[in-house]
């Protein structure tokens, strides 16, 4: 046992200073593993990774809720939460302690279950929501050598567990015995099923180029630089379109504005979790945000280089910092979009998914094939970009052709 600890410490000493910061969590885990007997090692290893995921991402969730409220406040010309800081002191921290009272409030609230509700299904729905969302984190590479389980079909696993979320949404909506809940669930499922297709098809291009479903391989394929700029897939024609499609589909999959029809407050109260209160509501809230982070993390891994720094002279920043920074940047864009765009109508939502995103994703797959087989020079950039731009123009025009856009007329508000 002590020999192993010595060995781990020796290898750590031989790392450069940059690598020491980069690998500190990996080495700490090895150190703990060296202290436990051989038979318990897989269990302890899994437990450590799970605890890390379970503590980091809900923590990010807590901070993001405050950022979202403050950001939306600024966009809407008000302050947002700015009072609560560290409890029992006068330090305000610009209101970033707001998540503590929010959490306590949802924990201590009464849990109201409607009389007509289907008790068992109503109870199970938030749990069924949260478990697949947490499972999805198992395959994301958070940093160099930092993946919980790195197996062959990682991408497939991610999308497979994502499919289970739809079941939980249905369970919540149906078991509440409330028309608004059921309407919200129907809307949510229709939207998720529709946008899952462009989501998966835009990820397929990356799989075609990398030749592997393993997410660490995807990151490794982007880990080289020319002229000091990283080879992120988002910097290629097909990757750029793929990233935009993935971004929009991720917005829709996580039911964010402008795709927030499933929980449109002004129409159907809160959608499928109308009848949930207290901690169960908090679980839905948590599940929704963790699902959003997971899908953003996947987008970052597929198109934005995962934990790789964008510029080669910034490579000294630890890998996990890059991953989290990219994730938070995209979350910020989500908040920005929420504060900016109005909600879509149901027919606009469906037309956009089936008539624009799906054909463009299919064309993008063909473009990725052309990119793979053409010689590595400037011509393939030209050809691929031309195909994508042309098809974008044609699809966009055809989608807008039958739209009668004009001055809006009001029936009752005049």
């Amino acid at each position, binding site marked *: 046992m002590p020999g192993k600890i010595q060995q781990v410490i020796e290898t750590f000493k031989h790392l450069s200073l940059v690598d020491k910061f980069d690998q500190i969590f990996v080495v700490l885990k090895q150190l703990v593993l060296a202290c436990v007997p051989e038979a318990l090692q897989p269990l302890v290893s899994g437990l450590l990774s799970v605890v890390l995921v379970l503590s980091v991402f809900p923590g990010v969730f807590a901070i993001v809720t405050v950022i979202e409220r403050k950001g939306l406040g600024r966009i809407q010309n008000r302050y947002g939460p700015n009072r609560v800081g560290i409890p029992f002191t006068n330090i305000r921290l610009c209101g970033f302690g707001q998540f503590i009272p929010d959490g306590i409030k949802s924990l201590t609230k009464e849990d109201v279950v409607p009389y007509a509700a*289907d008790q068992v*299904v109503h109870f199970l729905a938030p749990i069924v929501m949260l478990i697949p969302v947490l499972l999805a984190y198992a395959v994301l590479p958070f940093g160099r050598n930092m993946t919980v389980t790195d*197996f*062959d*079909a990682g991408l*497939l*696993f991610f*999308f*497979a*567990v*994502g*499919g*289970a979320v*739809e*079941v939980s949404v*249905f*369970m919540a909506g*149906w078991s509440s*015995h409330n028309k608004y809940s*059921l309407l919200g669930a*129907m809307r949510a*499922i229709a939207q998720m*099923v529709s946008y*899952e297709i462009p989501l998966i098809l835009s990820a397929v291009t990356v799989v075609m180029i990398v*030749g*592997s*479903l393993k997410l660490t391989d995807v990151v490794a394929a982007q880990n080289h630089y020319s002229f000091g700029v990283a080879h992120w897939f988002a910097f290629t024609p097909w990757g750029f379109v793929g990233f935009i499609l993935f971004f929009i589909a991720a917005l829709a999959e996580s039911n964010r504005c402008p795709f927030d029809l499933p929980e449109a407050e002004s129409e159907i109260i809160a959608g499928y979790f109308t009848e949930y209160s207290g901690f169960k509501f908090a679980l839905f809230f948590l599940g929704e945000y963790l699902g959003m982070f997971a899908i953003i993390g996947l987008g970052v891994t597929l198109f934005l280089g995962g934990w790789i720094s964008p510029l080669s002279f910034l490579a000294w920043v630890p890998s996990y910092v890059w991953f989290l920074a990219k994730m938070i940047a995209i979350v910020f864009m989500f908040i920005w979009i929420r504060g900016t765009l109005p909600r879509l109508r149901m027919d606009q939502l469906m037309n956009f998914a089936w008539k624009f995103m799906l054909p463009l994703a299919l064309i993008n797959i063909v473009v990725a094939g052309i990119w793979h087989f053409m010689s590595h020079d400037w011509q393939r950039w030209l050809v691929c970009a031309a195909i994508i731009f042309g098809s974008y123009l044609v699809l966009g025009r055809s989608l807008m052709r039958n739209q009668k856009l004009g001055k809006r007329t009001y029936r009752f508000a005049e």
Partner: protein
Amino acid sequence: MSLPFLIIAFMTVFAAAAAMSLRNLVHCALAFVVAFAGLAAMYLQLDAQFVGFAQILVYVGAIAILIVFAILLTRSGDTPNEAVLAPGWVYGIAVSVVVFTLLGWAVLNSSALPKQTPLAPVATVKDIGGLLMTKYVLPLEIIGLLLTAAMIGAVIIALKEPSPTANSGRKT
């Protein structure tokens, strides 16, 4: 017969039994989902990652939702009051037991069945993908065409025709 196998098998069989015996149809559909997930877990336990995840993706993510939608769109939410089992259930079970024994006996005594368990082939997801795109590309495309045709057919059947003569024919 390892412990994980026993747990998964019990869960799958129990959920399947619940799916056919519960009174509320939506509960049956949800129990069906558990059975699908149990089957997927069984595939994963046999190291068949691709089949396992495809099972979850297709059956839990799509087929189950389809079933649930079909139930909601065709029936009212009330649970029926009649008995779950049909009147002749004793005969049904007797017939099924006889058929199962006969089939099992025939399979076990078949000479086509290899007596020794063959070595498990190491099939990675990449191998499966390669084979699907080279050797089996024609069957794959035929299946794709068939499914697309079925989908278009379903849409056409469900499509309401906005013909002007339809209104004049129905005077009620």
